């Protein structure tokens, strides 16, 4: 009997996977609705080194006083490339400070990536061990957090920012926060 059960395992595993696939196809799926435990909480404490020596790094203490968008990215991440042009446009928004945290990325790779695609970030910090990302609860890159003047996380985007998210959610929220 046990022997028979082992032979059933593959088909059961496949049934589970097929179920996930089915859900993945659901048309009403909205990937931008991310319940995050971190919303409205202060940003976790962190103090990260800068990409280039001599430039400022990024500390949680420095986030107060202006609205900041922190973008986790990496040179090995394909969706980040897709998101990048939008970040370059977003960087022109004077109400907002756009900071980047390079997640598990060698400094030279990050530098090459930004040299190739352009650098939208006011500050670029390195999170090579990925500890700060864990504190934020980052699922994977790219991922972005909007932080208000009091240093609280107000919005989280898992996956690349899109035109719709920026216009429909991010900009109204920035307008509200900078009132």
């Amino acid at each position: 009997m046990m022997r028979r059960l082992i032979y059933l395992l593959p088909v059961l595993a496949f049934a589970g996977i097929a179920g996930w696939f089915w859900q993945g196809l659901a048309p009403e799926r909205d990937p931008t609705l991310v319940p995050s435990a971190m919303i409205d909480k202060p940003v976790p404490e962190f103090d990260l080194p800068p990409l280039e020596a001599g430039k400022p790094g990024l500390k949680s203490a420095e986030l107060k006083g202006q609205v900041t968008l922190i973008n986790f990215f990496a040179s090995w991440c394909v969706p980040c490339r897709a998101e990048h042009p939008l970040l370059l446009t977003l960087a022109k928004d004077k109400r907002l400070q756009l900071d980047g945290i390079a997640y598990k990325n060698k400094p030279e790779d990050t530098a090459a990536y930004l040299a190739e695609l352009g650098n939208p970030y006011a500050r670029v910090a390195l999170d090579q061990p990925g500890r700060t990302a864990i504190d934020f609860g980052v699922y994977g890159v790219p991922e972005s957090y909007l932080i208000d003047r009091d240093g609280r996380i107000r919005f989280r985007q898992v996956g690349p920012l899109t035109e719709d998210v920026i216009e429909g959610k991010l900009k109204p929220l920035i307008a509200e926060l900078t009132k």
Partner: protein
Amino acid sequence: MIVEFGHFALVLALVVAFVQAVVPLWGAQQNDARLMGLARPAAMAQLLCILIAFGALMQAYIVSDFSVAAVARNSNSLQPLIYRMAGLWGNHEGSLLLWVAILAIYGAAVAAFGDNLPPRLQARVLAVQATIALGFLAFMLFTSNPFARLDPAPADGAELNPILQDPGLAFHPPTLYLGYVGLSMAFSFAVAALLEGRVDAAWARWVRPWTLAAWTCLTFGIGAGSWWAYHTLGWGGWWFWDPVENASFMPWLTATALLHSAIVVEKRDALKGWTILLAILAFALSLIGTFLVRSGVITSVHAFASDPTRGVFILALLIFYIGGALVLFAWRAPALKPGGLFAPVSREGALLINNLLLVSAAATVFLGTLYPLFLDVAGGGSVSVGGPYYNATFLPIVLPLIALAAIGPFLSWKRADLPGVLARLKLALAAAILASILGWWLNRGGPLLALLGAALAGWLFVAAASEFAGRARLFTAGALGRLRRLPRAAYGMTFAHAGLAIAILGMTGSSAWKQEDIRVLRPGESATIAGYSYRLDSVGPVEGPNYHATRAQFTFIRDGEAIAVLTPEKRFYPVAATTTTQAAIHVSRLADLYAVIGEPDGKGGWTVRVYHEPLVPLIWGGILLMAAGGVVSLSDRRYRVGAPLRARGAEAVLR
């Protein structure tokens, strides 16, 4: 008119596939030789129909018939002929037609060359093949008709995605599909064996050449895709752990496992259930790859324009084929006679470990590929786990696998003498130590992982060579004659293992010792990289057939002597409004000099990126050698001779 004829041929193929799927299967059940006999002509007719459809669509692309919707969307009259032709499979509909065409080629090959198969097994194999064709033909005709007309027809087409306008498109998709779809043969043989309720050494011998052919094509196709990405994406990388790359890599890992486990079935009559499962899984992973690329569930640089109804249709096919085969497996496999027990130190024991490691490696890649999807379903967006995940999970599994690949071939069946084998590996050990010292000395240090990579490459290469030398007793009298009598499969294994070693050295070199230089240069200025100095001679416009390009010219100088002129381009395709990068590459002293031209800085300077990629040419060389091993092994005499005794036995039963 020709287009309608092609469409009709495709419908006819569907009908033929239906007959081929049902009648021979019924015949095999009823033991009716006439009904079973229908399988072979049906397979031939199916190939003919699909080739007509393929030819009709090809004609529409060649003459730029923009009244065909797929042609209008993916082709343009200004495109060079080769890209108009290869454009056929540069999109969802056409690539599906290529998919079913290759499926039909394999089916017809079983019909034509399967004389040594027992008729009942052959009938069942062909019926399963036709069932697969049936699903995909229906999918194509109902959701993705490549022959759909457009009225009114546009004056010109929208152009093939410029990134695809590369010689790589001409041979990467066809070889990859030959591999992907070729695994359907192993699947069909597995399902037929489950229906038959018998798996034996003869079965393993019949299924192996098909798996080997698919594996060889897949190896070549993955290598070609990697080379394409390397020279066209302009990031100087050759593997990105992109979901679609993984979609081809998972079946490759599983097929590699299958190739090894089929040997155990053939020689020792053991691991039968496992081998059947692997055959199902290998094809299941190719189907899942197809699903991922075409349904839009995952974001990838390769993804086709997607459509949810297509996703649901493919998922239904997936559930029917994979789910059906696995249910059949759960039902019939327990009845297979279990094989003998293994001694832990033996050839079969080593092959079992090989299988466990390969399947675990495939599982880690599977998790990494699907984690973003699972997360997405659970409420996250599409994220990438990328390189760090794979370095942490995939490498620890693969490194011991490579180390064992050197030892395995020395072990004898049933019970091996480990101390004796290790004594024969002294030379390989010396090579491993030498390779890591050499790596350390040449690069003044270097990451530990790179030294380990170099050591493993040296270890595996020398072990493969000395195993071969030992088998042929190369350094004693009469070696030439023994070399000629050595089975081709032995040559194949040596080539494949040595090729793997060479490729690993290349991967190690490029990952660890790559140098890059990014700067702004004005024409006439120079910079240095890895002991070369390079000068940006000029930057100027060049006109292509359907693009405007900016071409830079670099001269590379070593020891005061000009050794290469590189001319990378940046191309702008006005119809598609897309820019592509054409890297220029020169191979020198086993390293690639790789140059890319970027944007102007507005002050007369240009951003240039130059890479020195040591050992990278070895990656492609190693992969080619592995594929060559597959070809050589395929020509082994035992596959042509087959197992005549058993075939005669089966025929006797039928009469």
